[in-house]
């Protein structure tokens, strides 16, 4: 994998030869693999090294960019030549800005040696552990164990330079008990923190509880959303906070900056130093990743700025959102189980799946419940229920928060990793039911 010195050498190779007004070099050199299993056996076992170096240049505000997977001197210089050729025939970009000024970036423990050293045998060992527990229960396991380490860097002709290693390990498991499924997932910088056994037991328990299933009618329900389900809805809030759409009036948040958009007890921060989040030291654009307040006591405080819009709006420091943490103030429950005990009648949702926008103006979303949906009555899980389709805006339902836990780790197949509480929401609309 490309070391800091090797990246500096490659960057210098480009920067010294570039004839452009400005040149930026970025690198992503990743080595990792995945053991994938289904029906209690390994179905896929892969290991890939992929490096990608990108050269971006500008002449009088005319930009060009070229990438290559070949890090030999000839290829890197060819990428520079391609970028220059593109820039010379490109129209001037009115939003062009030179690279950010050089700065000292925060040093974070973004890579853990135990993950970087983990190879196919460690991944296989963890996969076998999950499969073994499911076999004992006479259940079917499907899932993945993955680990990777990447060298990520950015360098510019104005002296900007940043490079860091980032490791990541992931585990996810779907347990099948006849027609029922249970699910659990984890992601961490350290492969030692995947908690394979605990998470496998959790998925097994969900699957076993799902065997006794009933169908309920679609309609409005009180819901208990586990952290993964909360994260699924919140991801769409985070993805639609871009400042340019806000400014053009094509954002669901237009006109809402400084106003309350969710329950006043909810606060969203970026916490890149949090040991359980996947915070980084810098962005691909060469911006520093720092603590930032995005939503404070329900009030929208921040937008996701591109550099041009930030400059236009006089924003000095662009906030990043690489390590989101949503927390709730006030009395909290310790675990989801305590939320269940508080509910007279509710639907407990483990996770959502295939969430998509239905109406961008008010951020109405749709999606399905998945891998563990249960009816709660009188503080207890009564039975599993057939999966529902929902039709809701997170901007409506997160104004109706009744109770919550402390922020907990949440990872889903469609989102990154976040810290969010489990929550009880008073009124949530399920528009239809599926066959299982």
């Amino acid at each position, binding site marked *: 994998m490309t070391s800091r010195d090797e990246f500096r050498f490659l960057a210098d190779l480009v920067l010294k030869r570039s004839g452009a007004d400005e040149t930026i070099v970025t690198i992503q050199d990743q080595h990792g693999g*995945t053991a*994938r299993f*289904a*029906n209690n*056996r*390994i*179905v*896929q*076992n*892969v*290991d*890939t*090294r*992929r*490096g*990608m170096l990108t050269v971006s240049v500008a002449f009088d505000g005319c*930009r*060009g*960019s*070229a*990438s*290559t*997977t*070949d890090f030999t001197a000839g*290829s890197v210089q060819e990428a520079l030549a*391609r970028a220059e050729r*593109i820039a010379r*025939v*490109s129209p001037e*970009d*009115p*939003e062009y800005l030179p690279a950010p000024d050089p700065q000292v970036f925060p040093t974070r423990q973004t890579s853990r040696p135990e993950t970087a050293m983990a190879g*196919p045998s460690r991944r*296989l060992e963890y996969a076998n552990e999950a499969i073994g527990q499911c076999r004992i229960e006479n259940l*079917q396991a*499907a899932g*993945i164990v*993955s680990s990777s380490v990447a060298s990520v860097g950015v360098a510019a002709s104005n002296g900007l330079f940043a490079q860091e290693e980032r490791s990541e390990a992931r585990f*996810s498991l779907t347990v*099948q008990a006849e027609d029922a499924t249970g699910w659990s997932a984890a992601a961490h910088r350290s492969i030692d923190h995947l908690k394979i056994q605990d998470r496998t037991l959790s998925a097994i328990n969900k699957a076993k509880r799902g065997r006794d299933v009933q169908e309920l009618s679609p309609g409005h329900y009180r819901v208990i959303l586990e952290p993964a389900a909360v994260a699924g809805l919140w991801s769409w809030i985070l993805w639609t906070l871009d400042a340019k759409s806000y400014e*053009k*009036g*094509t954002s669901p948040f237009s006109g809402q900056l400084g106003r309350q958009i969710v329950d006043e007890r909810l606060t969203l921060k970026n916490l890149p130093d949090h040991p359980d989040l996947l915070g980084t030291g810098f962005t691909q654009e060469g911006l520093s990743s720092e603590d930032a307040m995005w939503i404070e006591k329900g009030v929208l405080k921040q937008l996701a700025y591109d550099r041009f819009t930030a400059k236009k709006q006089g924003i000095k420091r662009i906030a990043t959102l690489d390590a989101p943490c949503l927390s709730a103030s006030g009395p909290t429950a310790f675990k989801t189980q305590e939320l269940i005990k508080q509910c007279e009648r509710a639907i407990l949702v483990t996770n959502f*799946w*295939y969430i998509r*926008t*239905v109406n961008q103006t008010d951020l109405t979303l*749709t*999606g*399905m419940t*998945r891998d563990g949906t249960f009816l709660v009555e009188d503080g207890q899980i009564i039975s599993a229920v057939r*999966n529902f*389709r929902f*039709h809701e805006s997170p901007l409506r339902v997160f104004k109706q928060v009744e109770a919550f836990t402390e922020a907990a780790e949440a990872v889903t*197949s469609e989102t990154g990793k976040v810290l969010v509480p489990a929550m009880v929401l008073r009124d949530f609309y399920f*528009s*239809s039911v*599926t*066959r*299982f």
Partner: protein
Amino acid sequence: MPNPSWDEMAELALKRVAASGAEYGDIRLVRSTSQSVSGEDRRIASIRDVDDAGFGVRVLYHGGWGFAASSILSLEEVPRVAELAIDIARGSASLASEKVRLVDEPVHRDRVVTASRIDPFTVPLEQKTTLLREVMECLQRQSEVVRSSATLWARRDRKLFVSTEGTRLDFDLLAVQGEFTATARHDGRFASRSFATPHLRTGYELIEAANFLAETPRIASQAVEKVKAAPVRPGMYDLVLDPEHLSLTMHESCGHPSELDRALGYEANYAGTSFLTTEKRGIFRYGSPCVNLVADNTEAETLAATGYDDDGVACQKWDIVREGLFVDYCTNREVASKIGEARSKGSNRADSWGSVPIVRIANIGLEPGTDSLDDLLADVKRGIYIEGHGSYSIDQRRYNFQFGGDAFWLIENGKRTQMLRDVIYHGITPEFWNSCDGVADRGHRRRYGFITCGKGQPGQSGWMTHAASHARFRRVAVIKG
């Protein structure tokens, strides 16, 4: 061949694999060159030129799979990667409770080249940026259009596939696409209307024939009309769906459930399984008698028509649904034997040199019927005509779906009348396809494709084309989005 040493590298890798005692091995060496020119709000926002090259070695050892890949194309890296793939396969085999067995395939030695008249990589960049700027300018000339975007995309894949069975396949494949969007704002709302060519394996002639500038006034004015349109009144409607819209409906509700690996549980942890379980094959009433869904990976220009798949299996044509009855799956050499098939359908594809091939949806299309579009509309008292793609979501077994669209018109007494907004329809897959009572004729047939079909862990983007003529569906539940 872009690199004269590729054959040498393939030989080096496969010698190692053969010496290991593995029963099967293959190597794919790929150089993918792509160019994407993107405009946003009248400006060219980015021009990206990517040269992505590497190789992947796949090994089947005592019934266990191993795969290793690298972007370092050197004679020193090949043995390391080949040995790693062998070691990984040995590890998989040590845990194999059921051994993988590949169905037979004849040995092939062939070269496949995309036919094209204009190589998209030789078209001057200025010509592309000028076109996109003119398109965006024209879109934003329409009052109340507040945003615009436009994109041209092209990719060339040069690939060498060699297997221990003696198959050697050499590919030079192209794909091209272009699209643009106008976003209008009115009364606190905003809405978009898009125009897109299909993704096809052809040259830049696809873009020239699409005549973007002739289409921009219609798209811009329809964006404004859409944002000002009356919202749909929820209820049961007859739907007439255009081929572009149907491509997504077919993809999600027919394509994915027909992937045999899903039906067998391989995707249970991510993309999901399938309601089309194996005991339903040949007996399950998927749709009405007018529903014929055919997989055709041999039709020229379509995305999955690559001559051979990444198992080295020749592309084929077969029925998925015949006169409404579910009859067959998309398969690869591994899963075909699990339903008693002697040969794979040749639908195993990887999205790059760094990914292992997995079962992919074929070019599944709806066979034409005998009606004209006017015939389909004429028999609708109260319905909705839908064009293009919008919101989409479906459960992990592909039963419960929900779709929007790009543009909607009310049908009243057999005629398209005013535009509507916020139309969403939902249903259960077999109930929906059983409500189909008319398909337009071959003259209405259009092809649309996808290059971002997500599946697999690590995630891969699949490519396939879905052709259809307009089709009519009776009494479908519609809600306001």
